């Protein structure tokens, strides 16, 4: 799923980093990442709306996501965002990603699996909203999917590049734990609802400029994120909100108020 966060430092005003998690394929977490891919030669088209608030700063993004099932265990795609910020609007940095499910164990009404994924976010957007650097995300995801209960865990490492201002923005580590519950399992062609609760942790290294650490950067945030996943046949609506529950940000930074997302997804 896509969500937006902000690289906040009072020493570099107006710098906005768009952190986008992988768009979810099928039943995957909303803010974390799951191991699901897409059926071979299947196509996913998604429209994603995101909103983020941190003190007085607000930002929204609209993204179109396209994905392709290369095999039954391997998918690739791209995300095209547009950012609406307090200070500027514009095309966000595109993202290219690929996910490979290397392990799958199936039994009656149950699938357990694991996948690796990579996402490359080059400096490609409008300068006013772009991070102005090339970033790379690598990660690992695990999922347990049953008729009534779900659980996921994912670990991501984001290599943040140096931007045009010469700032090394500090790499990030993201850790996610998710539980899901389908209270009323339905038939194949019937509407289906799954409730999710995520615990999302983010650790950011301090940024550096000319080798010196920037004091108002880096730190840890944890979010509790309720969400819902509603589907009918090949159409899905996913929505969730991240609520900060623990913040240890270095120096003076804007603390998150919330992040929210709603996605509309079609499998074709």
């Amino acid at each position, binding site marked *: 799923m896509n969500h937006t966060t902000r690289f906040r430092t009072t020493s570099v005003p107006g710098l906005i980093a768009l952190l986008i998690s992988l768009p979810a394929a*099928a*039943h995957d977490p909303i803010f974390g990442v799951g191991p699901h891919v897409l059926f*071979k030669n299947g196509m996913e088209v998604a429209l994603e709306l995101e909103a983020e608030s941190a003190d007085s700063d607000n930002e929204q993004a609209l993204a179109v996501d396209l994905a392709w099932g290369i095999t*039954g265990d391997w998918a690739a795609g791209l995300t095209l965002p547009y950012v609406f910020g307090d200070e500027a609007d514009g095309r966000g940095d595109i993202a290219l990603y690929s996910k490979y499910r290397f392990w799958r164990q199936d039994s009656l009404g149950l699938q357990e699996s694991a996948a690796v994924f990579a996402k490359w976010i080059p400096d490609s957007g409008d300068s006013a909203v772009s991070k102005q650097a090339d970033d790379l995300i690598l990660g690992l995801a695990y999922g347990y*999917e049953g*008729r009534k209960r779900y659980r996921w865990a994912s670990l991501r490492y984001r290599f943040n590049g140096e931007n045009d201002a010469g700032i090394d923005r500090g790499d990030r580590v993201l850790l996610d734990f998710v539980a899901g519950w389908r209270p009323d399992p339905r038939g*194949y062609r019937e509407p289906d609802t799954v409730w999710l609760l995520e615990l999302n942790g983010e650790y950011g290294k301090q940024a550096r400029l000319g080798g010196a650490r920037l004091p108002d950067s880096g730190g840890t945030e944890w979010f509790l994120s309720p969400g819902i996943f509603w589907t009918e046949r*090949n159409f899905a609506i996913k929505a969730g909100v991240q609520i900060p529950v623990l913040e240890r940000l270095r120096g003076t930074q804007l603390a998150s108020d919330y992040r929210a997302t709603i996605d509309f997804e079609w499998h074709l």
Partner: protein
Amino acid sequence: MNIIPKTRSLMLATLLLGSAINHSVLAESTRYEMRVDGLACPFCAYGIEKKFKAIEGTRNIDVDLDKGLVTVELQGQRRFTDEEMKKLFADSGFTFRSMKTETHE
């Protein structure tokens, strides 16, 4: 010269031949019931429906998530094989276990 009996015979033969062809091509259908593992999510199972719809002659495709069963009717002479189903379900992201068939005239 007696043309009418010959014409009548020809017409009768054509009628019988047409009826035989019609009967063999259109009337036969086979119902397949496949045991599949990994079916937990309706949204995820859409790929199965799409793959079967791409095969000519298939109809009445249904997925029972609780029992792990996929049922399909296939018209005509063509038959599914285990190897074919194993690949179809693997391409859909699931595991094919076994298959039962029932032919209808």
